[in-house]
């Protein structure tokens, strides 16, 4: 099976100027947790995911020492979340993204999902973004696949 056979039919797409609030609403309305960021010309700019939003909300000192979360004042999460709502996708997106070709074997995508924490891989052909393959879209193929005879 090739990557093109396991691509998501309706990938979530956003632009660098999309607000984080808008991105979060679109995540909540879909069953996806990441969006591909493309510019006006359709070129791939990066990826943004729920993980990136959480990472931005989480202060670094709690990443270093999770015990400190126990003494942060009540309402801290709401304050941080409010501050991030007005930020744009460009502020949080990851620009160094592993990509894959539609003609690659899906096992390459499996390898990338195992090796990285990402759940979405942009599919690129001749330098152009043509779709995404996600853990879910690939998992769906596990349920429907039969051995090649």
């Amino acid at each position, binding site marked *: 099976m090739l990557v093109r056979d396991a691509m998501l039919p309706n990938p979530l797409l956003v632009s660098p100027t999309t607000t984080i609030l808008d991105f979060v609403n679109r995540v909540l309305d879909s069953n996806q947790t990441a969006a591909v960021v493309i510019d006006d010309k359709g070129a791939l700019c990066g990826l943004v995911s729920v993980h990136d939003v959480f990472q931005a909300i989480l*202060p670094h*000192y709690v990443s*270093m020492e999770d*015990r*400190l979360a*126990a003494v942060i004042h009540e309402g801290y999460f709401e304050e941080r979340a409010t501050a991030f709502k007005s930020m744009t996708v460009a502020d949080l997106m990851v620009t160094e993204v592993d990509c894959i070709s539609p003609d690659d074997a899906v096992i390459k995508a499996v390898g990338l999902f195992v090796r990285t924490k990402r759940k979405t891989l942009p599919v690129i052909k001749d330098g152009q973004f043509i779709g995404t393959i996600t853990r879910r879209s690939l998992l769906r193929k596990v349920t429907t696949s039969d051995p090649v005879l």
Partner: protein
Amino acid sequence: MESGALEVSVDAVSPALFWVATVIFVIAFLAIITERVHKTKAALMGAALMITLPILTQAEAFHSQQFGIDYNVIFLLISMMILVNIIGRSGVFEWAAIRSAKLGKGYPFRIMAIFIAMTAVSSAFLDNVTTVLLIAPVTLLICDELEVDPVPFLIAEALASNVGGTATLIGDPPNIMVASRAKLSFMDFIIHLAPVVLVLLVAFMLGCKLFFGGRLKVDEKKRMRILAMDESRVIQDRSLAIKSLVVLGLVLIGFTLHGILHIEPATIALAGAALLLLISRGDPSKIFAEIEWSTIFFFIGLFIMVGGIVKVGLIRQVSELAILFTEPSATDMQDLSIMVLWCSGILSGIIDNIPYVATMSPLILDTANAVFHEGAANPAELPIETLHNPVLMPVWWALALGSCLGGNGTPIGASANVIILGIAERSGVVITFLRFMAYGVPTMLFTLVVSHIYIVLRYY
């Protein structure tokens, strides 16, 4: 193996080996200070070449006190790393820091002063990097809650850790090395260095008040956030916290009494580490994985490299030059002390103070051997009366003061500075090289001037 079997006369080494050892040392040293190659790789390669070429025999490199690895230093470092790692897991440090911030009633400068004192005291008994790794997250938390700029706090803590670490034998790796080479006790450091460090810290706090005091203002609501913190919630394992503190206390008592007990600090620390490993429930392999093996192997490589140049007589020749310039006598080494203080201070701001002290210690031993006409074939085994001669002692203190305090000059002068800059960057706060130096250089110069005055007034 008997140590006597390893004695080799320096004069027996051929000129070819002298140059081979010198070239290996210079290239490895340059690689270390320019950071072109990872320092541990460079030191281990230099050590391997010293043995294979062969400047040193394997027995000399591994077992000889004169040319080989100083296991006092190695085991003291490893044991303290184990102890600190387990103590760090208990949350007791975060508990103490939050409690201290509450004692400051939430006023930013009071908290800064308390954190400076905490960092300095902690650095005197634990290693500096661990101290800043423990204090920095709490500092960021407090500054976030108070909504004040964390940069002045972080810079002050990095500088305070280097000043505080100067006070004791175990405070900073250069001191561990000086103590081992000069056979100085824990109490020697407390008696000779702690007083001047105390003066430096008080002056440093006044300087911080002058620089930052006016800028750090917060409203009542934010202060209340600090006072409302329940510090008991950061201790997740109360039993481990108590065990850690008891063992640390025992180890510190052991250090202060080691001269009387005739037990080396490395053995005391090793016993403490073994005891805490035994009574804590953690998996030892996870704790060993946290030991900074890179630093340990760096030391191992350095000891062998320096042993090579000691054996071929390079150190002896350099010490003869130092004698020529400073003209020390058996009754007066003031010029030598002052030269060592300032050279150590300025060089430690630029290069790693560990290789510097590893090279300087045998140089001082050689100088003492020549000046006091001991004529020992092995300067590493000079009698204790010579090592602790009141005329020589200020030179050891000058080396310790210069190499520890000089690290404050630049962001790369000390490991604690590098760590603080890294934590700040990952927290979204960039401390530039120049911004650090704006505070670091005056601190370094001031502390060296005070140390200069201290050495002259106390010893001459």
